């Protein structure tokens, strides 16, 4: 591919909309063409600028009540309503979980798959009970020391705000039979839970992706730590988050 061929694919490339073959062709060209690489970098910078949370207009409080839906009058606050919606979603998840469990008994699901289910359930629970964060801070120098008093390990807390993934806090959670660190990042209105704890086995494992009940999950292991990232964010942006997190 030359610059002329690549040009039409640069936007779909930056958007993660190319098939694997095309993507590799574009990457091959980018590795030897600084001009096209600059263009992709400019595109990424623009995409980051457009991900500023302040550009997103969230529905004003009270709009939901104004909707003349065929819905019974409600005195619930929006937050409680969303909690109720989340509870409905969670009960669906529990049901799906039960179905999955039956399926796993039949097909012999691995321990990792079961852990993935728990990671997703933990993510949903954190949103549902409005308990996303124990320590609310966008400052890694606040979040990291907070964990030191709670856990027997100290997680890495990279600052990704300038790349469009601001840290919003941290939380203690319980997974894989042990307390773990949950770092909470945001992309627009989407929360990303990043769980991490010391690995039980040493070898590094590359990032692998899976989806559970509409949530996207990424898992990897590096330098003796296990990492799980989960969000309802689209695949492409979650991949970008993981790439940035891994540095």
């Amino acid at each position, binding site marked *: 591919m030359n610059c002329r061929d690549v040009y039409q694919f640069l*936007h*779909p490339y930056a*958007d993660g*909309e190319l098939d694997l073959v095309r993507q590799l062709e574009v990457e091959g060209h980018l590795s030897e063409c600084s001009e096209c690489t*600059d*263009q992709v*970098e*400019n*595109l*990424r*910078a*623009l*995409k*980051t*600028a*457009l*991900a*500023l949370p*302040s*550009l*997103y*207009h*969230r*529905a*004003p409080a009270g*709009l*939901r009540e*104004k*909707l*003349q*839906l*065929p*819905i019974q009058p409600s005195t619930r606050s929006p937050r409680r*309503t969303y909690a109720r*919606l989340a509870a*409905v*979603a969670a009960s669906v998840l529990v049901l799906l979980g039960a179905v999955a469990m039956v399926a796993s008994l039949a097909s012999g699901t691995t321990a990792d798959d079961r852990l993935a289910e728990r990671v997703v359930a933990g993510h949903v629970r954190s949103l549902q009970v409005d308990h996303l964060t124990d320590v609310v801070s966008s400052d890694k120098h606040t979040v990291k020391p907070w964990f030191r008093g709670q856990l027997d390990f100290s997680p890495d807390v990279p600052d990704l705000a300038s790349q469009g993934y601001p840290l919003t806090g941290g939380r203690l959670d319980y997974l894989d039979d042990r307390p773990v660190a949950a770092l909470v990042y945001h992309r*627009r*209105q989407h929360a990303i839970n990043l769980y991490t704890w010391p690995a039980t086995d040493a070898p590094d494992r590359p990032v692998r992706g899976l989806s559970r009940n509409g949530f996207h999950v990424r898992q990897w292991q590096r330098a003796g730590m296990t990492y799980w990232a989960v969000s309802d*964010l*689209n695949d492409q*942006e979650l991949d970008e988050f993981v790439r940035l997190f891994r540095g």
Partner: protein
Amino acid sequence: MHLDPDTRRQFEDLTLPHLDAAYNLARWLTRDDHAAQDVVQEAYLRAAKYFASFRGGDGRPWLLGIVRRASLDWLTKHRQRDEVAFNEVAHDRGDEESNPVLLAVRKWDQELVRQALIDLPRQLRETVILRELEGLTYQQIATVTEVPVGTVMSRLARGRQQLQQRLSGCPEGGVR
């Protein structure tokens, strides 16, 4: 209009989680808070009416398509000029940041980004909003905006190019 309790519950579950997305799109299209609230209310009414024809799948593109239609109707009704001419003088920031590479390292001025988006022609604006703020796929954007995927791609490229030009202060097309 009457929906039985089960259908009502399904409708709520399908549409209410996307209230923010609905308002965000309406707000960027009408460029007005009150108008956007009216449009969202109208869109939810229409959605409830059309709910029987919803064929399953992801509710967000379906709802956003209805919100978009309601927004365009509002724009037509209020005869708001869709296209705001780009004022080159007001937006000419000189050539201090005309090097496109600087775009990547520069700290973006939020207000500048917002204004550049508002000034985009409507068709480019809605495409960029659906992609960058809502994270929809090309196919979903094509469904919402009722054009082929190829058109989505060219609008996205043009929209971004115009944004880069405006943000870098070279309206004549300095960013390649």
